[in-house]
């Protein structure tokens, strides 16, 4: 099946001023990226400072294999210190690792699949999906499997999850995690999400979209040198995937869109785009993370303005929530729009053509 054309989305360009250039040069960032953050976010100083510091390490309990108390007892016996944290859904359990005498990933418990290293912010996406046993669920960009396995935990491994990953090497990591965590209700398809056949419907779809990953900066400093062209291409790819999700979602079904970036083209703009496809934005089933209220979506980002369609979407920030940066939005497909969405066709404009 031929995939859809990816249409680039023009990124917002903010010329960096002298102070931005100075700060960027000192810390090795692309000035054009920093200029955008300074323009978009009010508490810019705290935010930039937070990007230079590591965030706490979180450990999700695999409740398919054990329970939180048992895992804590076993790891504390080995010298680890764990503090329970509130997760976005009570069916999930997690700890922050406060003392780690050696890598937790080399413990017997980790190898036995009793836990999974996963940032707390990324649990908001599976929690926002509110999956139920018996659901047909699609994870459109699944590797390395943290969210697919969290979904399986939420339903006690009694749903049917299709985890899609286009890159074979990353699909191997995905299957390794499914095997380690003992998830039985999941299948892996190695293909691009937009190339999935149209003849099946899902009750819930998660698109944790390929993104520029600016929110991961506290952990992955390589992302300091991103380019705006990357934003343009990925925002286009995200729209292709959103269109596909709108087609594959059953009427009345739930769609969750998430990214780990700050870029509004990949966050609020994507939500506004989804709202044009018969996907009705809905409130998230939680309003705080780590005891701190979730941040609202941006209403203004440089030259971009957004309307009511983004009012339910939420942002997570390293400097406020002590996690990686994240963006999450939830939608429900309108019944009467289902047929129209399925008939929608993409623009014929190919990527690479300048306006």
């Amino acid at each position, binding site marked *: 099946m031929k995939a859809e054309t990816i*249409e680039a989305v023009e990124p917002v360009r903010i010329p960096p001023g002298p102070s931005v250039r100075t700060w960027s040069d000192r810390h090795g960032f692309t000035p054009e990226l920093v200029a955008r953050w300074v323009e978009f976010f009010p508490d810019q100083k705290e935010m930039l400072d937070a990007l230079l510091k590591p965030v706490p390490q979180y450990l999700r309990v695999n409740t398919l294999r054990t329970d939180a108390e048992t895992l804590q007892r076993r790891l504390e016996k080995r010298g680890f210190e764990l503090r329970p944290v509130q997760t976005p859904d009570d069916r999930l359990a997690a700890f922050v690792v406060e003392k780690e005498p050696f890598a937790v990933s080399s413990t017997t418990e980790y190898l036995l699949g009793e836990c999974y290293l996963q940032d707390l912010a990324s649990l908001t996406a599976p929690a926002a999906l509110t999956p139920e046993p018996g659901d047909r669920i699609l994870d459109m960009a699944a590797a390395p499997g943290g969210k697919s396995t969290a979904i399986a935990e939420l339903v006690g491994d009694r749903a049917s999850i299709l985890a899609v990953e*286009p890159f074979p090497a990353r699909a191997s990591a995905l299957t390794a995690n499914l095997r*380690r965590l003992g998830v039985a209700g999941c299948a892996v398809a190695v*293909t691009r999400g937009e190339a999935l056949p149209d003849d099946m419907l899902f009750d819930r779809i998660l698109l944790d979209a390929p993104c520029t990953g600016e929110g991961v900066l506290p952990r992955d400093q390589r992302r300091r040198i991103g380019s705006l062209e*990357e934003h343009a291409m990925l925002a286009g790819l995200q729209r292709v995937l959103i269109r596909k999700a709108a087609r594959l979602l059953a009427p009345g079904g739930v769609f969750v869109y998430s990214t780990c970036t700050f870029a509004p083209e990949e966050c609020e703009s994507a939500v506004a785009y989804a709202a044009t496809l018969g996907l009705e934005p809905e409130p998230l089933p939680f309003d705080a993370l780590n005891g701190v209220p979730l941040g609202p979506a941006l209403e203004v980002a440089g030259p971009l303005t957004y309307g009511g369609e983004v009012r339910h979407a939420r942002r997570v920030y390293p400097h406020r929530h002590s996690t990686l940066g994240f963006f999450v939005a939830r939608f429900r497909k309108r019944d009467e729009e289902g047929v129209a969405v399925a008939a929608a066709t993409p623009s014929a404009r*190919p990527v690479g053509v300048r306006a």
Partner: protein
Amino acid sequence: MTQGPPSGERRGKAKGGKGRTTGKRGAAGQKKGGRSTRGPGPSKGTVKADSKKPADRAKAAGAPGGQMLEDTVAEEWAGPDEGVTPLVEPLRGEIRDLGPPERAAIEEALDRFGDRLLEHLEDEEWVLKVVVRTDIEPHRRVFRLRRATLQHLAPFDPIFLGVPLAHLARKASRLTLEGGRLIAPYATRRAVMVNEKGGQLFLYGRHLFTTSLVRVEGRPEAGDEVLVLREAEGDDPPRYLGLGIADRALRPLVRREQRGEGTEIVIRNRLDLGLYLRAQQEIPE
């Protein structure tokens, strides 16, 4: 219904904006002078090919014909006029029932560890299916999955479906790492219990010494495959660690009440749960 307008109304022209920009030299897979200059790339969907050897990286990425993955990404995401094609041909798994010889092979593989173990794996809820992959060498794996999952997801030709139980080969079928875990609670033969230290070393890929053994179930012969479990500890029940191969040195220990003092290798490591982290690509079978 037509496509909606680009989201986010523009209040004015962005300074320095140059319109649509992504092209063959843009985006995640930038090319310059024929070489990829790709930076960190998107946070999902990229392949971290750690090897410095181009052939290894291409192989790791599954790029056809040894072509570098990054070049493939650059070319295909750049999108010629007819549109973007998938990165590689989708990998497909053909799902089918077990044939009589395959079922017999699985029963034979399981019977080594206990009687009628297959009955614990199939019932009204659970079913065994063969998934055949043709993108790599003829490759047949038996998966255990729920019937509902099969009904919902089989049409997508997944390469992986449920929990892998065994790898089918011409000469003999072999349990997968998870297959051993599935049958461990019911096994009555060919199981060895080890102490914590020995178990930890086993998880790092090491063989088991005499001093690590706590108990041996059944009477494994040299060359027999055995389940390796860590002994119960306090409230914790025995925990499955992987699969080993009995060495000749194990036999005298079995005869003399299953304990020993030396540092001879008695169980050779075949598969252990540490492979989930150690294996860079596919977990061996």
